């Protein structure tokens, strides 16, 4: 039973006010304002007048084949990197959990890319995937592993450019999933494994029937968070391929940014943003619905 603290009616609002004011001004208000902008042929230069055009921006976005390609790319990026991060992250977590020395060292090493700036790692991956034979990846594939005969111009072709972006996404994010899975694994009571071992369950059986069910809620959290993150992919694409060649590596946010700040089509960009946000919110609720029924998913 909670004790009741006494306070004046306005006290909670005083605590909320400074933060909330900032939050409303820079987050809530822009969200509404953007909706408004999306109905205009919005002119950004001082002195120009914006014209109300109804749903025309949305219509144009939906008719724009580059937008659909960008959306498809974003979905594909999300699928590939979310699966990659979850599988590798869980694998690493299971191993780090079981390793008998240097636990913290391994955790630290795998987590390091997570705290490194996106701008820096984007340039770094561009460099190691250089088209030259001396590029780290080309060199490894040709001269160390003998898997290729000649250097690949990674950034020049759509498919190979995606390999750079996908691998960066997975490499940078797997440490995050690992740390969370690891914490979840550490929360499983060891007695469960001991009694399972007595019942004759092997490593695989224990993983399947104890570990996976016990980390179910954590897995759902990671899934939802990574999918939201995947849809926000931007810096790596913007800096490594710039959407090229031929807009084929464009993702929704890079396309939105380009149309808005390069073409100055702010109304159009606002409509793209709204469509993306709607998709992300729907997908997130969909996941919670689909995978979270039995849980009191309170986030």
């Amino acid at each position, binding site marked *: 039973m909670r004790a009741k603290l006494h306070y004046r009616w306005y006290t909670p609002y005083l605590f909320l006010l400074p933060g909330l004011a900032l939050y409303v001004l820079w987050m809530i208000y822009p969200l509404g304002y953007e909706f408004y902008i999306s109905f205009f042929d919005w002119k950004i230069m*001082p002195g120009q007048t914006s014209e109300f055009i109804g749903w025309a921006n949305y219509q144009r976005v939906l008719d724009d084949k580059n937008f659909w390609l960008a959306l498809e790319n974003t979905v594909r990026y999300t699928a590939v990197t979310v699966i990659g991060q979850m599988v590798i992250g869980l694998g690493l977590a299971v191993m780090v959990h079981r390793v008998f020395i240097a636990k913290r060292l391994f955790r630290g090493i795998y987590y390091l890319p997570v705290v490194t700036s996106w701008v820096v790692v984007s340039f770094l991956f561009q460099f190691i995937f250089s088209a030259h034979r001396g590029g780290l990846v080309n060199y490894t594939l040709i001269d160390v592993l003998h898997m290729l005969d000649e250097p690949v*111009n990674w950034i*020049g072709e759509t498919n190979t450019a995606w390999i750079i972006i996908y691998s960066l996404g997975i490499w940078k994010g797997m440490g995050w999933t690992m740390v969370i899975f690891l914490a979840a694994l550490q929360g499983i009571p060891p007695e469960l494994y001991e009694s399972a071992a007595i019942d004759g369950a092997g490593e695989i059986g224990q993983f399947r029937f104890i570990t996976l069910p016990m980390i179910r809620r954590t897995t759902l959290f990671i899934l939802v968070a990574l999918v939201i993150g995947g849809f926000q992919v931007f810096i790596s694409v913007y800096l490594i391929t710039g959407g090229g060649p031929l807009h084929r590596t464009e993702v929704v946010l890079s396309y939105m940014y380009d149309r808005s700040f390069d073409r100055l089509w702010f109304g159009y960009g606002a409509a793209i943003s709204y469509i993306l946000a709607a998709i992300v919110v729907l997908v997130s609720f969909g996941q919670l619905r689909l995978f979270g029924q039995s849980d009191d998913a309170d986030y």
Partner: protein
Amino acid sequence: MKAKLLVLVLIAALALPAFAHAQDDVVTVEFWHTYNEVSPENEMLVNTLIPMFEAEHPNIKVESVPFPYGEFRQTILTALAGGEGPDLARLDIIWSPEFASLGVLLPLEDVMPDYADYADAVFAGPLSTNVYEGQHYGLPLDTNTRVFMYNSTVYEQAGIAEPPATIDDLVAQCDAVTALGEDYYIFSDGGTYGWAVLPWIWSFGGSLTDGAMTTSTGYVNGEETVAAYEFLKDMIDSGCFSPSFLGGGMDSGTGYFTNLFASIMDGPWMFPIAEAQYPDFTIQTALLPAGVGGSISVVGGENIALFVDSETEAALEFLRFTQSDEYQLKMSEVGQLTVKPALLESDYFQNHSYYGTFLQQLKTARARLPHPAWSQIEEVLTDAGQLILRGEASAQEALDMAAEEIDGLLAEYE
């Protein structure tokens, strides 16, 4: 007592800025440009020319703000949108019509009584890039073009004596260069944007639109333009031209300076770059190899323009200064070719070590479309080029689609 002190402090605080202002009637003019930040041209501007101007105009201070070329257009547009734009800027000639159409530039005829005197002193071609709806929104600052640059080390290794006079000659020299090794190419460029492909299109006798810029059908998908693209595709497929046309790969300049690429096409700024980064290298120049349309290069260069809400009078003074013989000559020393024909007769240019080729090439060079939608048209063109060079569409198919899109863009501005 305390209250009195407070009042005094308040009055002082309010009055101080007023005093400061009274003493300080110097006007600061912000000049944004893309003179390469670590380069002789920027040093010349900051260490020689601006001090010279400020000595003559003690009441004007010029603040030079350099930007990398790639992000300049977007930075300046967002700055203007946020009311934080410059007073003056050095704009790539292809941006002038777009900026004018956005209403951010001042028409010089209206604000500069002596405008005609300055307009008469410069080349008509570069001047025309400042026109939007019949008014001039700037003056040319420098001009340039791309010429053929060849690498004498590679030529020697391949046993090539002379740079090619025609495109056919260039093709004939290819095998000797590619035989040197897998990283060797006879020619390289960095993409399919206008600056790279237009010289080929024009030299093949093609073009993008009619003269009045009303339609591109029959021009951008005309027989000659198609032939130019087919030629480029053949050359890349046969390993003569570097695949860097497709993006990525080795930068053309780097390949040229490191004796891998036998030739490139580039502008006069390459000389200061070579001097700084490859001091042992000597750039050799020639006219572009000629096709059926002649040896036609592309005109580049910059304009200087004044922005709405600028410190107009002070900014105009600096603009006039950039048109002076002194400014033009000093900048020509660091790779920025003058826009004043009168100066070209001077001994300096007549005996110059490398401007000769550029001046000759400029006689036939053409400008990219001075159209407010150029950035978008160029995107269409770049994409069509990529489709063709990657073999995903025939030149005719890709250019037919491009013609349709470009016609649409042109129509929006009718």
